[in-house]
Structures are given as structure tokens and as C-alpha cells.
């Protein structure tokens, strides 16, 4: 009985949604042309940044990125405070035995290459597709590979906390420095060079390096907290 009512309600909702979507043409420009042309013409002309999505995320709507980094920090803190154990109750880890010889040797060889790829992706965030979030998640995947292959691989909590806190402080202080120079919060105050160079775009590479390191450290801490959880 409950299933029939839910299916009929969902069908009505789906028909209304599809009727609105069929009135829009797929693949034609139908909204007002103001927003898209403003971002696409101001990014290579005023900021000299090639990747338009990066300049929207960091410079034009940079306050939302600060909020998103705060939400990730809140998720890590909530997860490690819900799964809290006293010091004498720490059980075994969820990974009970090491993998075979081939997996152990292969992970030890692949781990520096994955870290190097992650650092490359978030340093060149304003030239090629990529950026802070992508590079941080790739670094967390590298640490996950090492944690799953070896039985007693430890990541020190102190190092993760120091990296995460200092990256957050750098992000907020760059924003405050923009305010001290007579502008608004998170304004670009360094000179922008020529386009498609590594040192171009003002404060955008600095902010993305801070965001990449912070996201990588946070997600590694989240995975490490969840893996150490066994009754």
C-alpha cells in the first residue's frame, strides 16, 4: 500500500519536471546573456587566467570556497567525535592482515608517483583542468593505497594537524591582506603577468596551493579515523 502511493506521487512529480525541461531547448543559449559573457570575457582580460572555472571558484566567488573548506573541516571533526573511543578501548584495526607480496611492492613504488601527480594538479590549477580539490583528493587516494596494503602503516596525527591548520591560516590571511590594501576581502593585489605562464593570476596560485594541501590532509585524517574502528 505504501509502495503504490509513493510510486504514484513520484510519477506525478516526474511528469511535471519533464514538462518544464522539455520547454527548454537542449544545446541552445536561452538564458540572458549577461552572466556567461561577463565571466568569459573578464577572465582572460583582467586576470590573465586561462582556466575560467578556476577564476570563478577562487576570485569572483571566493567566499563560497571558504565556506566549503569550513564544511569539510566540520565533517572531519564531527566524524572523529562521534566515533570516539577511550584510550584503553582501542581495538584492532579494520585491516587485519597485509596483502600479498606483489601488492606490497607495487604500492611502495606507486606511492611517490601518485603524490607527485596530486601536487602537479593543484599547482597548475590555473592553466590546465584541475585545481585544489582535485589535487587534494588524489593525494588522499595515494595514502589510502598505502593504508590498505600494509598492516601497520601509521600516519602521525600531529603532522596532519599542523599541515591542515597552517593551510587554513594562509587562506584567511591572504584574504585579510587584500582587505588591508584598500580593497574588499579576497581581492587580487599582486600583479598579474602574461597569460599561460606559471606565475600569473595574482593570488590565485597561492590560494589554490593552500586549499589543495588542506583538503588532502583532511580527507586522509577522515579515512584514518574510519579505518581504526573495530569492536
Amino acid at each position, binding site marked *: 500500500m*505504501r*509502495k503504490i502511493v*509513493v*510510486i504514484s506521487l*513520484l*510519477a506525478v*512529480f*516526474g511528469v511535471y*519536471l*519533464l514538462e518544464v*525541461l*522539455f520547454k*527548454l*531547448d*537542449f*544545446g*541552445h*543559449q536561452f538564458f540572458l546573456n549577461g*552572466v*556567461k*559573457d561577463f*565571466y*568569459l*570575457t573578464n577572465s*582572460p*582580460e583582467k586576470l590573465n587566467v*586561462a*582556466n*575560467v*572555472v578556476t577564476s*570563478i*571558484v577562487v576570485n569572483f*566567488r571566493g567566499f*563560497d*570556497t571558504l565556506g*566549503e573548506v569550513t*564544511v*569539510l573541516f*566540520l*565533517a572531519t571533526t*564531527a*566524524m572523529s567525535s*562521534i*566515533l570516539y573511543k577511550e584510550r584503553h578501548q582501542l581495538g584492532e584495526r579494520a585491516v587485519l592482515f597485509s596483502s600479498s607480496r606483489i601488492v606490497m611492492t607495487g604500492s611502495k613504488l606507486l606511492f611517490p608517483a601518485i603524490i607527485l601527480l596530486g601536487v602537479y594538479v593543484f599547482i597548475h590549477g590555473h592553466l*590546465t*583542468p584541475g585545481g585544489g*580539490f582535485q589535487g587534494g583528493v588524489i593525494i588522499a587516494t595515494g595514502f589510502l593505497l598505502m593504508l590498505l596494503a600494509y598492516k601497520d602503516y601509521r600516519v602521525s596525527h600531529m603532522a596532519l594537524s599542523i599541515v591542515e591548520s597552517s593551510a587554513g591560516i594562509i587562506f584567511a590571511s591572504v584574504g585579510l591582506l587584500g582587505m588591508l590594501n584598500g580593497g574588499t576581502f579576497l581581492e587580487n593585489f599582486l600583479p598579474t603577468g602574461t*597569460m*599561460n605562464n606559471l606565475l600569473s593570476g595574482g593570488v590565485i596560485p597561492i590560494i589554490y596551493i593552500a586549499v589543495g594541501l588542506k*583538503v588532502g590532509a583532511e580527507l586522509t585524517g*577522515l579515512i584514518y579515523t*574510519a579505518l581504526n*574502528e573495530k*569492536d
Partner: protein
Amino acid sequence: MDFKLFDLSIIEYAFFITAVLVILIGLYGVLVKKTLIKIVIGLSVLDAGINLLLISVGYLKEGTAPIFSPALLKGMPLTMDNIRKLSEGMVDPVPQALVLTAIVIGFGVIAVALSLVIRLYRHHHTLNIDEIKNLKW
């Protein structure tokens, strides 16, 4: 190439129909199922459907990615006319910036929800929401 059916072109609306179907399947999983982990799986499917719908709204026919790479410029000087001519054929970059945030926050929500599921199981020793509502304290 597109073939007409009931005076619509099927290839143009395939993305919209798929996205709405995935959203409805995810909503059914959240509303009907009784095991807690199955409800969180439905939430994950719902997130995927919504992100696909948002990005497929901002697509332009025969459009290119919104990046001024050296291969696209091919040695042209950067004047305002050249930039305006190139940006006529580019895909909308604003939905991509919004979906980038939405994916990361969706993962954060799932991580916190699953840690709450582990705590509930330790306390009640069952994962059925009807039995959890029956056992008071």
C-alpha cells in the same frame, strides 16, 4: 544525426530523461526502504542524478571546454574581438563551478551519516527503522 519521433528529436532529450529517472529512483530508495544503509545508498544515487541534471542544462551545441588553452588560441593575439569570438562557442562555466562544490559537500554528508549509522547499531543492535522506533531507550 538525429531521428524524429513524435516530432521530438530523441538524441537531444536523452540526457534530461536519464537524469530525471535517476532522481526518481533515488527518491524511491530514500522513502520506501527500511534498512538504514540502504537509505544512505539511495541518498548517494540522488546526488548523482542532480549533478547530471545541472551540468546538462549548461551545454551548448558543438561547444568547447571553457579554457583558453594554447591549442585553442593557435597563435592569435589577445584582443577583445578575438576573445569575444572565441567565447561565443564555449560552454557555460557557471554550473560547473557550482557542481564542483556540490560534489564535495555531498561526500561530507555521506561520511557523517554513516558514522551515525555505526553508533546507532552499537546501541540498538539492529538496523531496521521500525524496530528502532519500537525500542524506546
